[in-house]
């Protein structure tokens, strides 16, 4: 019997040196026609589609959910992440520019303001809102739109699943796994309004470690009459390491910085002239996921967000009695940190009974001498649990709650219940009730914003503190259905929400203190729990895949708002509509159209009245294969049919614009 020692030695060397590396296979493949082994049939595989990765199907979920997937993101032609939310029924999206440069405002069921803080926004499980003012700074997120795999929008309070601040709803952004983006990707966009963007991404793999690096540079100038140009420098990195068959470690870090032009409202302004500020945001995140028997999961996560906006500038020449005429230096810098440690356990207690529970510890701190009297910190901790029980073949019951304790507001509970009844295999009715609360932001609780040029003081905000959290009780009746042979899915939601203790600022008398003179008058703004609001209405969403190449969608919402404050009612759009149609052709050409409409709105805060808004966007793209690489050239025109509508304030005139994008995948 012949024995080929040469092959044996090579094989053993291979295992000694390289382990599972591909190089090993290369060496072995050098043998002519390697035989397929039975091991390929018998090998153990790591669990990839875990409970959390699968998510719940829409028919089993306790809330109404809208999913925006990658294909829809690409077909929309959106450059800004905030724009994508116009596709969600009931969502109000606009942009403001004052005091912070261009900022997207995304708020479900109205109540938008320059500090839209009533939604929880998570990126891969990390909460991204700014604890100081509670807003989500969409422009300053260390996240490139090209790296998004999908976005899940939960319409309705869902603290039990998404944590604190999921007051009106929650947005969960999931980024792509590095293994999906191997190789080099480059994109370049040029357009009107000085749009100039470049993106470079590299995805690689070293054995069980997949990683991705993304760098982007974005430049634009959104509104003509406003100083809002920006240059965004963005860098993110993600690495997923699989060790053993059950454990995955995900590491992420990112940076978003650069110059943002900004100015105060009502130009010309002495104290708030146009100027440049710089932003420096970064985060670090580590998550460990262990898959237990039967698909159960255990996860542990830690992250740190650092947000900094440096705004040091000179006022215009100011003449003050006794002080002559000169320019003064103002420092509006804000620095904020968040540290969060969270653990979550998903377990199948019995077939048909799934239990997810966990807890987190969080520390928020902000330092902003021009906004807060002193460095403010807030420790909070929360415990949450959620059970999903298939009580009978047709009945699925969801029950969950979150218990939260913060230094400011003490302890509170946010429960949520829903019952899903399966009318037919693909048609589900859902009834639910949930309560949630929104804790005041650091600024609402401890604001002390004024400009002091001794002995004069210009008061802006002064909080008397002791705010109660805002509370919402939401009741809904929903329907989720599918007509599979047609590829049609329908989602409808009837809701009634009652919000108590809405926090708003109101003008109050201001005492400048001994030896100081208040200019221009002795009033300031204080945050108080001022209003109640009742909202009821109907939302529907339709998605229809007519064929592999054609997809259309439609979303609608009608909201009837009643409140003791007319302004609060005016911030809620009575009717909103959105629609999209996407068609791919065999030649690699694709066309998509998006249309949006909403009734007049006057958002809260410093917003102006916004007349009815309607807008149509068009995207035309051609894909080409050049050898092994893929190329795509796309033309996007936004606000195609009309020419201009106003966003947050009258000076924010959004006029028709176009840009060209070239994408290359090697």
């Amino acid at each position: 019997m012949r024995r080929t020692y040469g092959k044996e030695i090579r094989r053993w060397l291979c295992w000694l040196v390289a382990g599972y590396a591909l190089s090993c296979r290369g060496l072995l493949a050098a043998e002519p026609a390697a035989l397929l082994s039975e091991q390929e049939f018998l090998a153990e595989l790591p669990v990839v589609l875990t409970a959390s990765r699968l998510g719940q199907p829409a028919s089993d979920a306790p809330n109404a959910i809208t999913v925006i997937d990658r294909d829809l993101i690409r077909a929309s032609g959106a450059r800004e992440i905030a724009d994508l939310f116009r596709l969600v029924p009931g969502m109000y999206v606009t942009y403001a520019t004052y005091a912070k440069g261009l900022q997207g405002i995304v708020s479900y069921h109205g109540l938008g303001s320059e500090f839209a803080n009533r939604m929880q926004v998570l990126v891969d499980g990390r909460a991204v809102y700014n604890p100081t003012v509670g807003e989500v700074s969409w422009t300053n997120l260390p996240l490139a739109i090209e790296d998004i795999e999908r976005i899940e929008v939960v319409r309705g309070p869902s603290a039990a699943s998404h944590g604190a601040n999921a007051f009106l709803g929650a947005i969960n952004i999931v980024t792509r796994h590095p293994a999906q983006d191997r190789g080099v990707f480059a994109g370049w966009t040029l357009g009107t309004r000085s749009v100039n963007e470049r993106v470079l991404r590299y995805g690689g793999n070293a054995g069980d470690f997949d990683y991705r690096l993304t760098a982007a540079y974005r430049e634009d100038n959104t509104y003509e009459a406003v100083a809002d140009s920006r240059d965004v420098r963005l860098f993110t990195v993600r690495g997923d390491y699989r060790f053993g068959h059950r454990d995955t470690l995900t590491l992420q870090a990112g940076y978003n910085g650069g110059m943002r032009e900004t100015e105060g409202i009502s130009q010309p302004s002495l104290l708030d002239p146009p100027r440049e500020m710089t932003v420096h945001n970064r985060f670090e995140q580590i998550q460990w996921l262990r898959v237990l028997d039967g698909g159960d999961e255990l996860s542990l996560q830690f992250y740190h967000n650092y947000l900094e906006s440096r705004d040091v500038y000179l006022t215009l020449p100011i003449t003050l009695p006794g002080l002559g005429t000169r320019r003064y230096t103002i420092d509006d810098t804000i620095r904020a940190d968040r540290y969060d440690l969270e653990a979550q356990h998903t377990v199948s207690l019995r077939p048909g009974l799934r239990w997810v529970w966990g807890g987190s510890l969080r520390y928020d701190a902000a330092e902003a001498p021009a906004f807060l009297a002193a460095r403010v910190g807030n420790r909070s901790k929360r415990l949450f649990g959620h059970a999903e029980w298939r009580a009978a073949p047709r009945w699925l019951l969801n029950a969950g709650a979150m218990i939260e304790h913060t230094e400011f507001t003490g302890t509170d509970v946010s429960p949520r219940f829903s019952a899903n009844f399966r009318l037919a295999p693909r048609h589900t009715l859902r009834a639910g009730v949930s309560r949630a609360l929104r804790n005041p932001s650091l600024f609402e609780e401890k604001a002390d914003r004024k400009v002091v040029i001794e002995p004069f003081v210009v008061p802006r905000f002064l909080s008397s503190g002791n705010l109660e959290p805002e509370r919402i009780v939401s009741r809904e009746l929903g329907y989720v259905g599918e007509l599979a042979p047609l590829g049609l899915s329908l989602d409808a939601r009837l809701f009634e929400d009652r919000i108590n203790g809405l926090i708003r600022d109101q003008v109050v008398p201001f005492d400048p203190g001994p030896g100081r003179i208040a200019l221009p008058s002795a009033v300031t703004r204080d945050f108080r729990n001022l209003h109640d609001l009742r909202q009821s209405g109907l939302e529907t969403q339709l998605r229809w895949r007519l064929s592999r190449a054609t997809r259309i969608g439609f979303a609608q919402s009608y909201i009837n708002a009643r409140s003791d404050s007319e302004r609060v009612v005016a911030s809620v759009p009575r009717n909103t509509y959105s629609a999209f149609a996407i068609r791919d052709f065999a030649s690699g050409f694709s066309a998509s159209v998006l249309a949006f409409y909403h009734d007049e709105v006057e958002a809260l805060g410093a917003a102006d009245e916004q007349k009815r808004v309607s807008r149509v966007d068009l995207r035309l793209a051609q894909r080409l294969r050049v050898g092994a690489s893929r190329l795509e050239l796309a033309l996007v025109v936004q606000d195609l049919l009309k020419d201009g509508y106003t966003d947050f304030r009258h000076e924010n005139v959004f006029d028709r614009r176009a840009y060209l994008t070239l994408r290359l995948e090697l």
Partner: protein
Amino acid sequence: MATVPSALLGAVFALTVAWAAAAAGSDTVALVLSARTPAHEAVSGAIRAQLPPRVPVVEWLADESNASQPGAPRINVAVGTRACAKSAEASEAAPLLCVLLPRSAFESIAAGAAKERALSALLIDQPPARQLAFVRIALPHARALALLLGPQSTPVEPPLLSAAAANGLHLVSAAVARPEEIYRALQGLLAAADVLLAVPDAVVFNSSTAQNILRTAYHHRVPIVAFSPSYVQAGAAMALYSTPEQIGKQAGRWVRGFLEGVPLPQAQSPREFSIAVNERVARGLGLNLENEAVLEERLRKLERGR
């Protein structure tokens, strides 16, 4: 006088022993394993369980020396590709039954073996007709079946093509040579298919590529029909496979039959099979899959009716 009966007894005894030894030697089953994994041990155990207790079974690992066997075995049984390849290299008269290996491996080995050597196999892969009948039963609305092939799995395409045509299903396939090409090829396939049939191959379907394939297919809402329960646990919607115990039992019956004089059947796929379903994934994909027992029964009925 006393010595005669004792001598006779002794002679009878010795003859009996010699006869038993000769009989034992002539009925020995040589069992070669490719490796000592639970699956191989299960096959070996199931084979032994089918054989009469008096039949000696000599077992060793393919990589060990086999100089210890007493006398030529009546039949060689090789479990796994490696054992089959090694055993086929030996020039022996006794037939070789290869068990638990893929058809493509067996056919390669058989082509290279000596002409006179009697070879048969009880394969690990499912017959194409059964795989496609399974797809038709589990996913009645599916029209297009995708196949991602690697260097070792290309031989399965032709029989699958004809079986697909017979079942009214359209087959789309893509072949890749390196793991880096998988994602691109998958994108193209999944855009055109209703279901992905996973076919084993060291380059395409292994634990590092599984992540990518499972996630991508799920993202495209395309269910995967896999070949092992482990793949279903990992995230494939369903699988059709034969357990090592089922294969070992059938192989053991063949060996027992052979020892009793029945010739070995031709190389074929196992008769018994099992089905695994991942409920969570199926629900996530919006599939209305029946439970495993029902699907198994329906597939068995369909096969019997054939």
